[in-house]
């Protein structure tokens, strides 16, 4: 019999975490601002209280890697407009339904009787479409490279089974472009990156190589468990201490390779292509940072088919909300005047408070005791 590996507790072993903290303390030789790109890492860092056990030299800067947080209001208004169309079911993932648009949220719309489904798997769309042949089912697809293959797989099945009542509103975004945008902006003081876990499983860690070359910042791809993050921090420190050429380091070897999941990449490339532009909440327009359906699939592209229903005006955040600065790594949630007061998870003003992976939500839930977010 194979020995059973406990995939949770093995990576949360208190002795290992304490030992890593001790080595980090011993070896760290300079202050390092580390941006964790992915919201999942923000969640890990805050939930396990890592800043409390790390030396002062290590400062976490939270990045733009929460797919719900970076969605500009006008695209949430798209979802609301689509869900409000007659004879329509709108399906989307997770906490997207809580994000406020300019007037309302999908959750409120659902309470008013619109048919809005929060799915666990995009493939559930097939079942919904077959059970409701007389209705249009619009899948509001969100997420980074992690969830894109599932949307592509859904497109493949819809085409193969010739299901006529499924439409796609694609909001899939990619990691390297916003990271480049933040670095080239020059305002954020970032010395190194924690590379996303699940995104890298799909894309491979090769996608970060141009960033390291261009900006000389080490990137360590880390798993989502506390020992993963701690180990990646140590490996970043060692890159600095060695003083050699910077490189993309892969700590998460149990799931990530340089090339990634080629089958998933091929599936995405078959149905989707880069958009010329995508407006990121708080960051603004970033060229080629998101995907859309290829033109040959325009007949199932909700942005084409239902164009007349979709508002076009660009909408900015509430003046007091600083989600934009937080997503660019220029501010921390505690810097925000409305954090925890006018803006809470039950009543969010900005998107970083909505998603459990948003920095504000993680600070609200886990950070209030130590006040030491990073």
């Amino acid at each position, binding site marked *: 019999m194979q020995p059973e590996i*406990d*995939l*949770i*507790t093995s990576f949360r072993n*208190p002795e290992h*975490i*304490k030992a890593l*903290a001790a080595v980090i303390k011993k070896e760290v030789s300079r202050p390092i601002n580390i941006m964790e790109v992915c919201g*999942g890492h923000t969640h890990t860092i*805050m*939930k*396990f*209280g*890592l800043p*409390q*056990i790390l030396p002062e030299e290590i400062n976490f800067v939270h990045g733009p890697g929460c*797919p*719900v947080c970076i969605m500009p209001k006008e695209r949430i208004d798209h979802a609301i407009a689509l869900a409000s169309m007659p004879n329509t079911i709108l399906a989307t*993932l*997770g*906490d*997207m*339904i*809580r994000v406020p648009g300019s007037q309302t949220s999908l*959750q409120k719309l659902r309470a008013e009787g619109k048919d809005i489904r*929060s*799915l*666990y798997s995009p493939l*559930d769309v097939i079942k919904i479409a077959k059970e409701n042949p007389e209705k249009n089912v619009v899948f509001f697809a*969100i*997420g*980074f490279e*992690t*969830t894109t293959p599932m949307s592509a797989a859904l497109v493949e099945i819809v085409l193969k089974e010739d299901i006529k009542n499924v439409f796609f509103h694609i909001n899939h975004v990619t990691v390297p472009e916003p990271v480049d945008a933040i670095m080239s902006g020059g305002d954020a003081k970032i010395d190194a990156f924690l590379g996303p876990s*699940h*995104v890298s499983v799909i894309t491979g860690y090769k996608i970060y190589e141009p960033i390291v070359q261009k900006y000389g910042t080490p990137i360590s791809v880390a798993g989502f468990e*506390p020992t993963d993050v701690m180990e990646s921090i140590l490996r970043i420190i060692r890159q600095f201490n060695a003083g050699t050429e910077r490189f993309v380091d892969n700590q998460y070897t149990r799931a990530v390779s340089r090339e990634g999941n080629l089958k998933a990449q091929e599936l995405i490339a078959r149905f989707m292509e880069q958009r010329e532009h995508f407006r990121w909440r708080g960051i603004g327009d970033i060229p080629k940072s998101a995907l859309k359906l290829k033109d040959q699939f325009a007949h199932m592209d909700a942005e084409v088919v239902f164009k007349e229903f979709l508002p076009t005006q660009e909408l900015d955040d509430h003046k007091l909300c600083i989600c934009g600065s937080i997503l660019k790594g220029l501010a921390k949630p505690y810097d925000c005047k409305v954090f925890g007061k006018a803006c809470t*998870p*039950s009543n969010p003003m900005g998107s970083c408070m909505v*998603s*459990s*992976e948003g920095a504000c939500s993680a600070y*609200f*839930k*886990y*950070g*209030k*005791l*130590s006040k030491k977010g990073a």
Partner: protein
Amino acid sequence: MSKKILLSHGGGGEETSSLIKELFFKHFENEILLKMEDAAALEMNTTKIAFTTDSFTVSPLFFNGGNIGKLAIAGTVNDLVMMGAQPKYLTCSFMIEEGFSFDDLESIVISMKEEMSKSGVKIVAGDTKVVPKGGVDGLFINTSGVGEIVVEGISAHNLKPNQSLIVSNEVGNHGACILARREDIELETELKTDCASLWKPVEALIKAGVKVAAYRDATRGGLSAVLNEWAEASNVCLEIEEEKIPVANEVKGVCEMLGFEPYEFANEGTMVICVQEGEEEKVLNILHKFEETKKASLIGKVTDKYKNRVILHSAWGSSRFLEPPKGELLPRIC
């Protein structure tokens, strides 16, 4: 074709009467119920009476380790027990959707009977309504209960610094089990609900004379809700050692996959007990003798470090507040 519940079974006429006799009287049989008066006339040995009610709407109706009927008995029994009361009498109302299977209803009724035998409680009055299709989701049950208070002064307002906190079982099993059974998730798991009546272990604690400040069953909102309610009611701080909280590996797995916290999952047979300093070992020794509380664990202490707060300490030296659960449970995206 299998027998179905029809609208006429709730009409108050002959069919209602035969459903009551063939099903409810057959299994719930006791002297008071069989008198068929408009109300049950009860005898109590004390003037201190605990009285509670709860409605059960769980979906799915059947799950690993229990069903809505078992839940409807254990839930109300536990609410009485948590006040230091011996459960005595229950009322029970069924709201049944037209077309519901008679066999399913009977197996639910049989589980209720079995669950009642664990605390000696009796159903002494009841009501049956059948509603048109779509009026309820299969079956809803309401139970109300009265019990004789055996130890006085059990209260959420009683917590004081230096008292200890004990949880009676693994937390999150029921919530995770129900979530995994939901049609849109379809997780394969052997997880079982913790659904159980807690009278026997609590009776043993009462008989042993242990000094308890408060009991509460960690139902909706889970462990996190109980701890936060207590901290607020008694204006104290509860400091919890996270690694002492028993959580089944499968529950951890479900939580990790879907982005939930086991401390926010519902339990149906797991309680938190606040005991006087020095009583911990005695309480644990008693609890460990019962199947339903054999995984009981000392998880923390009451302190005055903050007001109205619950602190979770990790085993590697970090701490955070455990916030009360909020909003709809939504799975995370990636």
